[in-house]
């Protein structure tokens, strides 16, 4: 546990060692404010809730989480520090979890900075704060899922740009999985169980259930399982690369 925390602290501090953190947080807040207020007409809806805010999260995270996660392993490979890190006497799991956790807490910080919006809706009306809390939690878990995927892709290359693109592409598949457009394209030829499996992978469908306040627990479990699987895969990728 203390080893995970050491990796976490080093990695988290690394985000703030460059202007990257400030730039990222600014961009995140600007985009989310723009989408919520202009595209979704937050004020004209006449509803005291945050659904206009949360509906954009899958799309924003699709791009921003790979931006946070791309450096996690690719940068270590490029600079050679991976050789230092991976010859320390700790399990690869601690390194993988510590690094991912740093990105996840950073994403949590970005979400925390949107709290004024929550306060505003409470000032304007009386929203269901339970649902909003669950939505924040769901959003954070979804961010963690995108990040875990990004970390995996990052472990495959020493090129951060490739890591970013790869993570966006894979993330996009998970976002699109639930859309009728995609499902109707595979329905004619794929067995029902495959269609079912693909649609059950949809980030948007799971996230929507959380923000609508229905079936939250299975959706939370979905994101937790996905993170656990991606972290496991990350460890495997690092092991396999040793034998390459």
């Amino acid at each position: 546990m203390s080893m995970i925390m050491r990796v976490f602290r080093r990695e988290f501090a690394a985000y703030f060692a460059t202007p990257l953190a400030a730039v990222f947080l600014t961009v995140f807040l600007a985009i989310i404010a723009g989408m919520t207020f202009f595209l979704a007409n937050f004020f004209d809806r006449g509803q005291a809730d945050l659904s206009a805010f949360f509906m954009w999260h899958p799309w924003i995270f699709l791009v921003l989480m790979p931006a946070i996660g791309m450096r996690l392993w690719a940068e270590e490979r490029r600079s050679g520090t991976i050789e230092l890190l991976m010859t320390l006497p700790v399990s690869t799991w601690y390194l993988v979890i510590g690094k991912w956790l740093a990105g996840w807490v950073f994403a949590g910080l970005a979400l925390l900075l949107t709290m004024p919006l929550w306060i505003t809706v409470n000032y304007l009306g009386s929203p269901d704060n339970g649902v909003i809390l669950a939505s924040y939690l769901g959003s954070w878990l979804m961010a963690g899922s995108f990040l875990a995927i990004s970390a995996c892709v990052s472990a495959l290359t020493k090129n951060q740009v490739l890591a970013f693109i790869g993570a966006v592409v894979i993330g996009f598949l998970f976002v699109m999985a639930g859309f009728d457009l995609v499902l109707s394209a595979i329905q004619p030829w794929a067995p029902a169980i495959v269609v079912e499996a693909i649609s059950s992978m949809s980030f948007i469908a799971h996230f929507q259930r959380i923000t609508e306040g229905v079936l939250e627990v299975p959706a939370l479990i979905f994101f937790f399982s996905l993170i656990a699987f991606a972290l496991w895969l990350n460890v495997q990728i690092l092991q396999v690369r040793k034998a390459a």
Partner: protein
Amino acid sequence: MVLVETRALVKRFGSFTAVDGISFSVGSGEVVGFLGPNGAGKSTTMRLIAGFLEPTAGSAHICGHDSHADPVSARLRLGYLPEGAPLYPDMSVGAFLEFVAGMRGLDSARTRERLAEIVESIELGSVWNRRIDALSKGYKRRVGIAQAMVHDPDVLILDEPTDGLDPNQKHEVRELIRSIAANKAIIISTHILEEVEAVCTRAIIIARGRMLADATPAELIAKTPETGPDGMARSGSLRLEDYFREITRTPVEA
């Protein structure tokens, strides 16, 4: 007591064999110099021993622990300086060494004690709070050496530890290696043959992934004539160089 052992180590990258059946063991008190032309397989062998790479065949052991099958126990006893001394550029020297000490399992009291000793012996006091990316090449190398020694390991593997150091620092590092060698096994790679004569109790010459020689520097020196082609008397390290040239130039397959 044998602290490092390799048994028929083989490493292939695709169809290319970088390390081709290397077996040796290093006991307590020995300082082994790895010599060989560029691309000989020195760094690859060191990476295999450190467990950064997985061997295609054979095995490497540190204090009896297989560095691939039992990596955590093996690495607890290992201090490793990778080739080029990679470091985290955005950290300060102090923060970096504290991080490594913590990851190597030292508690905070022991970390303080060891870092105080190391700052002294590697002369890092003046750059302690400096960011690593603001250091000169030689200081970076010193920080790399410091991180390898921070936990006072039984086994030290240093890939080109004196590369980029000024003559004074080269001398200091050699002195340092000599002074801590008594109950450790130390493997260094180098292209400086006088360094082998100065600090190593044993030299292993590698070319094309194979071991060509394994003897004390004095034994290797004795294998070449005392006078060079020009008829002048040759010093020890020059004769070592003659020998090195002679055996690494002949094709291994021939």
